[in-house]
């Protein structure tokens, strides 16, 4: 199982990076004044969010296989990244929009150029609005990595599943994996939430 945990973590980390980078691009597209970029971003998000993650994984692994063969791990990272980019994209966009318009105005009135405003005023404030939903999505991401066992990646879920099909003790195996997943969830949702609260309190 430890080997599975490592793979789960590696998968989570790589998918997260893809999702964050791509999500930020999506957010910028949807915030941009270009109608085309905006439309592409919007449609991408609408469509990808409407399809189950498992189906996306299968599409990346099997359907894409006709054109371009991705290894299982790559396909998993691509599909989880593609799906979670929509979640992170919306979080980023919401947070940037959520920063009071008065902040931009005040910064402009002080003569700051728009890049400085983004860097020094908007993003630092958006960061703290982003944290709670972002950790929430991260814990969803970890849970959804469990779906990649269906394309034969030996993650934590796979270890439990194949161990069960070997020793015929499904409850024990699944609960063992469940405890590990639950610990990740608690760490993310409780400890990080507490840390966020402390940071936020120190500033308000």
């Amino acid at each position, binding site marked *: 199982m430890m080997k599975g945990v490592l793979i789960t973590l590696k998968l989570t980390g790589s998918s997260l990076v893809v999702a964050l980078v791509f999500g930020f691009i999506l957010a910028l597209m949807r915030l941009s004044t270009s109608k085309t970029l905006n439309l592409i971003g919007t449609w991408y998000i609408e469509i990808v969010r409407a399809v189950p993650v498992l189906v996306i994984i299968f599409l990346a692994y099997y359907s894409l296989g006709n054109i371009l063969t991705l290894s299982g791990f790559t396909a998993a990272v691509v599909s989880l990244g593609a799906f979670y980019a929509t979640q992170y994209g919306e979080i980023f966009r919401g947070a940037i929009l959520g920063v009071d318009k008065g902040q931009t105005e005040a910064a402009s009135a002080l003569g700051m150029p728009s890049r400085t405003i983004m860097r020094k005023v908007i993003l630092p404030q958006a960061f703290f609005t982003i944290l709670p939903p972002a950790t929430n999505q991260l814990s969803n991401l970890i*849970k959804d990595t469990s779906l990649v066992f269906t394309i034969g990646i030996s993650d934590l879920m796979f270890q439990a599943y194949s161990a069960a099909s070997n020793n015929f003790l499904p409850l024990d195996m699944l609960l063992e994996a469940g405890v590990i997943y639950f610990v990740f969830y608690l760490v993310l949702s409780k400890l990080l939430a507490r840390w966020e609260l402390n940071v936020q309190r120190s500033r308000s």
Partner: protein
Amino acid sequence: MHIVGLYISPIAIGALKDLILTILSTLLSFVLGILFAAGRLYGHPVIKLVIGWYVEIIRGLPAILQLFIIFFGLTQIGINLSPLTAGLIWLVAYGTGYAVEIFRSGIMDVAQGQREAASALGLGRWITMRKVIVPQAFALMLPALTSFVVLQLKNTTLLYLIGYADIMYQARLGADATEAPGTLYLMAAAAYLIMSLVIGRIGYRLEKRATAYR
């Protein structure tokens, strides 16, 4: 195209089955969700604690793991469920965990001032709930409820893994028999996409209507 023709009707039937399961499990989850939310807000401390942990566990475990525990795991202690029963139980159990939080935060998000105004007018707790809080909470919750239904629909994908003959199951069989997974999984994706978008659209309409007063 040949393959599309061969598999369109089984996939459509699978889609219909998924839709029925979605609706059924959504309704059941809503009923339980409201009861649990009331329990979590106003119940005995022990009830609050139990419901709180129930929600955490549902949210903390991967969906597929929960489903497998119910379908495969329980057999170890002698409980054998059919794919349909296990699937429905899981969808409701899972949905309830999420619905509780939607209802709870919907009720709490109605401004405190509304409760106070109702108290100051002498409105009792029950009338306040029915006439003041719930109508507003419902409008506040609609977006979350719409995503909830879409989430439940997407969750039905997993049922093929325990052998329930839904969209994915048909696509899988097709992919096995024809070795043309590209087409078949795209068909499955399209089926989910269409249903999700329709649900989203209905939710949006309802939301427009419910929030007309704003």
